[in-house]
């Protein structure tokens, strides 16, 4: 059967990745920042799938599953911290966290 060329998949992944990265850079709301991180991670996952499909392995897909769990864990910890942060600062603007510098 005719399969999608590897490059296309990777380019898509790259685009996703860039979106995620830009999201991290631009958003001030920490929740959105976490979401952007998710996107970055998933971009990586997608790239793995593409690779797996190229070589016809299972490894890539396993990797993707692992990334999902990993992302979940990240978010879990992240949200925990966000709650703490919201308790203390009554805001989710990330710029409040800038007391240490120099």
């Amino acid at each position: 059967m005719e399969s999608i060329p590897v490059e296309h998949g990777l380019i898509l992944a790259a685009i996703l990745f860039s979106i995620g990265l830009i999201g991290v850079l631009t958003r001030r709301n920490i929740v959105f920042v976490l979401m952007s991180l998710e996107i970055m991670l998933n971009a990586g996952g997608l790239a793995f799938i593409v690779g797996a499909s190229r070589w016809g392995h299972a490894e890539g897909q396993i990797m993707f599953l692992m990334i999902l769990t990993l992302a979940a864990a990240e978010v879990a910890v992240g949200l925990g911290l966000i709650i703490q942060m919201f308790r203390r600062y009554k805001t989710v603007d990330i710029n409040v966290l800038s007391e240490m510098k120099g």
Partner: protein
Amino acid sequence: MDITLADLIPLLPLLVTTGTAVVAMITIGIKRDYGLTAVITIIGLLFAALSAAYLMPNTNSQVTPLMVVDQYSLFFTVVTCATAMFIAIFSYSYLANLDDHKEEYYLLLVIATIGAIVMVSSNHFVSTILGLETLSMSLYGMVAYPVHVKKPLKFPLEASVKYLVLSAAASGILLFGIALIYAQTGTLEFASVVNVPNITEGLDDGFTITALVLVFVGIAFKLSLAPFHMWTPDVYEGAPLPATTYLATIGKAAMFVVLLRLIEASEALTFNSFILVISLVATASILAGNLLALFQRSLKRVLAYSSIAHMGYLLIAVVASYFVQGSISVEAVTIYLVAYMIMSAGAFGVATVASSSEQEFDRIEDYKGLFWRSPWLAAVFTAMLLSLAGIPLTVGFIGKFYIFFAGVEAALWILLAVLIVGSGIGLYYYLRIVYCMLLAVDVEQKFDIALGRNISSHAVLVFLLVLLIGFGVYPAPLMAMIETISTYI
């Protein structure tokens, strides 16, 4: 493939550590007892270290595709577990008066150690990621640990959030890079990326280099190499001292071992441009780190910046590894890592002993006249600082000597020049601290180092000092051991 019982034996250290975590968790579940948990952790880590040391002489096996348990990884397992144990000991007195649940901290510490062990013995991207994330996750926790005490310190939160977000981003980059490499080579093991079979058009060298750079950046972030270093001082400053220590020693070492294995296995340095990339990062780190530290008044931040510079020094040896025949540069990296762990553990240790979770003594002025208030502590601190500055009689000098040697053999003149300049600048801020300790004592005792309160911590300091001077004056045994294990890379 299925795991036989024989395969489990090399994993003994890992299993012991894991066991420790489980046991600790159960005990906590049954009855909260700070002392007990601490003791369990410490003993568990001790056994892990011992078992690793026991296995070391005659073990060299690939346990599942994921983990290679050779002398090198076992050596670092020993180092890691030992350091973790020391940190646990430091933590004990540090956290003693924390008005919150203290026990889980040790859980996190042990789990982080599991991650570190996995990393040092991984030659497969999956295990790398597993280990790395296990480590990072628990570190987030450790950094933020005192986050909701009654007298709220804002810093742990800020540090933790910054660390979490940036580190997650870095992991993302790392993963993406790995994915590209995988797409290129078709294997997740650390394998050569040069002249891979049946290369498809479009996935040429440029692609490979991109992938490598992505991976390298991901790792460079964890090693806080410039320009990915900015999080370091903030996280170091915000985190409670033991967590900082953990971050600065084990966190760095484990990651660097991975980097070393990866670079060696992937032959990435055959790309000149990649060498250029690493050299640039090394130069940037050395200069940035040292310059940033110059007039810094917070001890933790100084050490953070200096760690940036030290990672830069290490990269020089990595670059050299491509040019020299023989394992000199691998030895250089190894011995420097060991030296670095000893001295930064010692330096942070002194601060930890002085401080406690209620009040950390982080300003350099806090240590004014320490030489006359507490000569012993000051002596240790001075030794550690001089070692960081690479002065003879200390293991730090031996490490630097190796790096110089590797650099000379590889004829990396520019990098050596940078190294000299950097060390020159470095002298200034290390001596600044020493001088501050030499100043006349102020009237009121800034802080008391009740020897009784944490005799064990002092014992650790003694041990570290002995190692520092011992390996500094008679490094032959250490060198011999490292020479043998380095052949496994």
